[in-house]
């Protein structure tokens, strides 16, 4: 079992890293030929960074759009953030002080995450408009995350596992020297689902996480009159046809 999970996690990590790397490189390399920020937009680069920060941390546009959805989304994402940060302890020795500090909030993070996910799933069933745009993969994604959250909460509260051994397993993975993984079913399901999530990530809508930073309507500066914006392919087009417009 230990070997199987070691291979699984090495594979999942490689797929996640390579997949995200390829997608991010694609986004970065694809030109944005026109200035299309949704206005009013910031006039400076620091203003754009601030706008993007509000979007990523506070979900500003979503707040404008739909308050209940905003609450559900914040519950889930904030919970996930706390849970992820708390799990850092499995990968470091000694544990960073801030990571140690948030340990007591892990349970609340998990509850917020699972509660948020349940509400997001409920919306997809109950609201006709949302049901209409939902594909099976949207439910599968929620189910995957719910599975991870529920098994995790289960181990936190009911069926504890040997977390010392789990930590040894992951520290071992980091040193390419896997240590025995406990065989509790909840743990194995939890870890298997996490590996699946890592593998699915670069092929799914989870790409919204890196993608939002590349969204031209949010990351462009409103200065088209002051600075000429010209993409490489548009410049080439100009070279071919330049004569017509110049004296």
């Amino acid at each position, binding site marked *: 079992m230990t070997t199987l999970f070691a291979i699984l996690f090495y594979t999942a990590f490689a797929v996640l890293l390579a997949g995200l790397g390829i997608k991010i490189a*694609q986004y970065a390399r694809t030109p944005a030929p026109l200035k299309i920020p949704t206005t*009013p937009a910031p006039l400076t680069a620091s203003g754009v960074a601030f706008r993007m920060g509000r979007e990523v941390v506070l979900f500003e546009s979503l707040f404008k759009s*739909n308050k209940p959805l905003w609450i559900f989304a914040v519950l889930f994402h904030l919970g996930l953030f706390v849970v992820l940060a708390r799990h850092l302890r499995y990968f470091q020795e000694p544990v960073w002080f801030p990571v140690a500090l948030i340990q007591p909030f892990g349970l609340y993070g998990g509850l917020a995450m699972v509660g948020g996910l349940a509400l997001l799933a409920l919306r997809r069933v109950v609201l006709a408009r949302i049901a209409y745009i939902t594909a099976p993969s949207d439910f599968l994604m929620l189910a995957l995350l719910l599975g991870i959250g529920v098994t995790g909460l289960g181990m936190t509260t009911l069926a504890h596992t040997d977390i010392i051994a789990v930590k040894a397993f992951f520290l071992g993975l980091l040193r390419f020297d896997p240590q025995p993984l406990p065989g509790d079913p909840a743990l194995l399901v939890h870890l298997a689902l996490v590996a699946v999530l890592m593998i699915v990530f670069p092929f799914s809508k989870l790409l919204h996480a890196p993608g939002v930073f590349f969204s031209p309507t949010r990351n462009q500066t409103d200065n088209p009159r002051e600075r000429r914006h010209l993409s490489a392919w548009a410049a080439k087009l100009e070279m071919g046809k330049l004569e017509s417009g110049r004296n």
Partner: protein
Amino acid sequence: MADIQVPVLGDPAERATPALTPGAMSGSKPYVAQAVHQQPLGFAGELPEDWQAKALGRMGELLGKYRSLQVFMDICVKCGACTDKCHYFIGTGDPKNMPVARQDLFRSVYRRYFTPAGKALGAVGLGSLVGAKEFTRELLDEWFNYFHQCSQCRRCSVFCPYGIDTAEVSMAARDVMNHIGMGHKYANEIIGKVHKIGNNLGLPGPALIDTLEGLEEDVKDETGQDVRFPIDVEGAEVLLVTPSADFFAEPHVLGLIGYAKVFHAAGISWTLSSKASEAGNFGMFIGNYEQMRKISMRIREAAQELKVKRIVFGECGHAWRVAYSFLNTLAGPWDFLDPRYPVPQHILEVTNGLIQRQGIKLDKSGNDGMVLTVHDSCNVARASRMGDCPGGQFTIPRDVIRASVPKFVDMHPDTTHEKTFCCGGGGGLLTDELMDLRVKGSKPRMEALKDVIDREGVTHMAAMCAICKAQFTKILPIYGYDREMVVSVHQLVSNAIVLGNND
């Protein structure tokens, strides 16, 4: 023309969303362009046998050329934040008019042919698990219908947590369709006229000169002043580029008279150009960079030939988007113009600047009895700016209107500024065969207008876009209002401006 059903107007504060009515607008579509309109633009004349391969080829090209398209295809999480934001959905209840569902017509093809999951599952008939669909003839027909029920107004993108802009997707879809001979007749016919004659309405130079002379006489009769409407005057300070509707349609032309009076009163020499006798640029509506550039280059050429120092655009929404956001990219650099002025300027920036430093004088009594509200045009509100600060596109028109009229009130805040609703006729949909869609799409704006008419006694709504003005002139009577309720912003300036030496 299809039968027109006029929606019942409710209270804008309730933000009522309609129940889903699948297929409600499945029959709404514009005329398909014929070869005679397609080929001069370099597009396929008719749908070829291998249309699917050609369409997918063009999709691939666009995905590689436009980061917006590539990123937007991948990152939508189907949260539904946009689902109740589109005026065409609010007016029709057709679920395919929800922005995400409209995008999904495109995205389902993207997923099937351009993503690993869609390719693998699609090959064994399980594409629907991940929202992937075969690109069938039926789906192509849906593209044609529903990507011509989007006015590219960007309201959905304001509310999207990732800024996904359906306008970008509908532009790409229209470009793909043009490349396989499924063009939109109205748009492509107009682009042909711009290239051939110089403007969207096909007004030839002599007719234009005639019209302008007529306007000079009219203004002389009305004011006793020699207000000029110059055209092709070399060495003028300002080249005015304005939508061709300004030359004769009402209320547009009353705005043109306003621009002329402003230049006259401020002593700024100006000229129109018979070569660039059109501000509009339908190249944007069909999502074609080359066309958009070609149309923009006329303005560069005119500016160079006439040796002007500044370029000023008249009241037009999408034209201002192309001018403000794209002109420097498409036809710049503008290093041969006077560097003290932004290139280009909006006529409202010019007028507002003159009001601020008292370069012109306004007398509100010229608009006695009028209570104004303003319709923020989508492309001005969400795709451009005026002045030096973010949001100047909202304050400057309001400042100019307030300076010209005795009373001004804003409509419901959910329907103004960046949340403004499209007039219902933007994005190249201002054509008669889409009248039913246009009437339904104007519902949210009409609700907000009715609200201020009933509560505040509003008598007129100012617009700063040729398409909005034309749309409301048609739509207002259908809702039981006077077509003359819609006015140009510079029509109000025209009524209020003090000419001559009587100050």
